[in-house]
């Protein structure tokens, strides 16, 4: 049987690639260290497959057919379409179509109705962590897109339920493989709205505390009350909730947190504690 051996969270921002050469040295050093720390943890966990949970930044999907949840079942996934990521080293990325289809059918049999994609581009949200973690070899990827950009979005509760569903699917997958969950997004930031550039450190630190503690009810109630005030980019924390559910809400260890005004994002990096069921 397959099992979830690790789960990680990392923030992303296009400017972590586009403006990399002009970022102040301290920010660059600390970002590099945080991503690399996750990369070392990931390598040590030796996953065969990464289930990566991230938003699509209008790269694949448009409002003519906008999924709230979409599972990528392709044999491969194209690298990031953003010109500033043209040097992304893993292009195309290998998918894990059997596991992905198993997650899809498990979802449909358990009252979830994701969209499915046989061919996706993975944009900076998916690829910046993968690139900056500097993995020697990239495991196969099952991308799962959670709509975190366009209202209305899946409820916070449902994001947690999605995490549990992913765990259930992995644990009922017959092949004996190791799966890591990686979630990309958050913490506080604002894009294209009047608060653009504002980072809400108070929100970010309280949010991290709520994830660290692990317990679902206070985490959900904290987010219910505060997420909407932390900028539209903070909605990406929905992806963290999915990973939290997949890790069975056992809390996590912070790797690092620091606001990076130059990329507009409160950047958080963490490793979940993995409950073995």
């Amino acid at each position, binding site marked *: 049987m397959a099992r979830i051996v690790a789960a990680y969270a990392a923030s992303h921002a296009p400017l972590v690639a586009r403006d990399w050469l002009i970022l102040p040295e301290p920010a660059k050093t600390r970002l590099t260290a945080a991503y690399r720390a996750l990369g070392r943890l990931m390598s040590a966990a030796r996953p065969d497959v990464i289930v990566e949970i991230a938003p699509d*930044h*209008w*790269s694949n999907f*448009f*409002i*003519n057919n906008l999924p709230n949840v979409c599972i990528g079942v392709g044999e491969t996934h194209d690298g990031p*379409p953003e*010109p500033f990521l043209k040097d992304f080293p893993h292009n195309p990325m290998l998918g894990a179509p059997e596991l992905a289809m198993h997650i899809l059918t498990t979802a449909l049999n358990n009252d979830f109705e994701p969209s499915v994609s046989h061919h996706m581009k993975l944009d900076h949200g998916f690829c910046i962590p993968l690139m900056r973690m500097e993995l020697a070899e990239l495991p196969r990827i099952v991308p799962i897109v959670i709509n975190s*950009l*366009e209202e209305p979005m899946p409820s916070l509760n449902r994001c947690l339920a999605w995490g549990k569903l992913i765990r259930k699917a992995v644990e009922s997958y017959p092949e004996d493989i190791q799966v890591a969950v990686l979630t990309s997004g958050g913490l506080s930031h604002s*894009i*294209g*709205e*009047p*608060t*653009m*550039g504002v980072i809400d450190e108070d929100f970010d630190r309280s949010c991290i505390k709520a994830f660290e503690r692990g317990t679902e009810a206070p985490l959900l109630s904290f987010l219910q009350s505060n997420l909407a005030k932390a900028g*539209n980019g903070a909605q990406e924390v929905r992806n963290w909730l999915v990973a939290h559910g997949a890790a069975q809400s056992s809390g996590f260890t912070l790797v690092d947190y620091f606001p990076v005004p130059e990329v507009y994002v409160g950047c958080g990096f963490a490793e979940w504690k993995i409950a073995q069921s």
Partner: protein
Amino acid sequence: MTTDYWLSKLFWDLQQPAAQAEYRADRVAVLERYQLKQDVRAAVMADDVAALSRLSNPYLLRFYFFAVGMKDDEFIAKLRAIANTSQAEKHG
């Protein structure tokens, strides 16, 4: 916010570098292909951040103004002006 489909479609399409180049060279010709309402078209021609911000997703808005070459500083200043205006309206 009311989503304007065709404005959003314009923003979305302009993520393609080729489309951006064409748009910078001849905005009017590209706009012909989108069924924009009169006032929306005018807001596009005038680079009216405030008006357009009410009609599409903020990420798409940001992509768009980046694509047409507006610097982040100017874009953010115009976004702040919206907030200040609506503050003023509320409190004024």
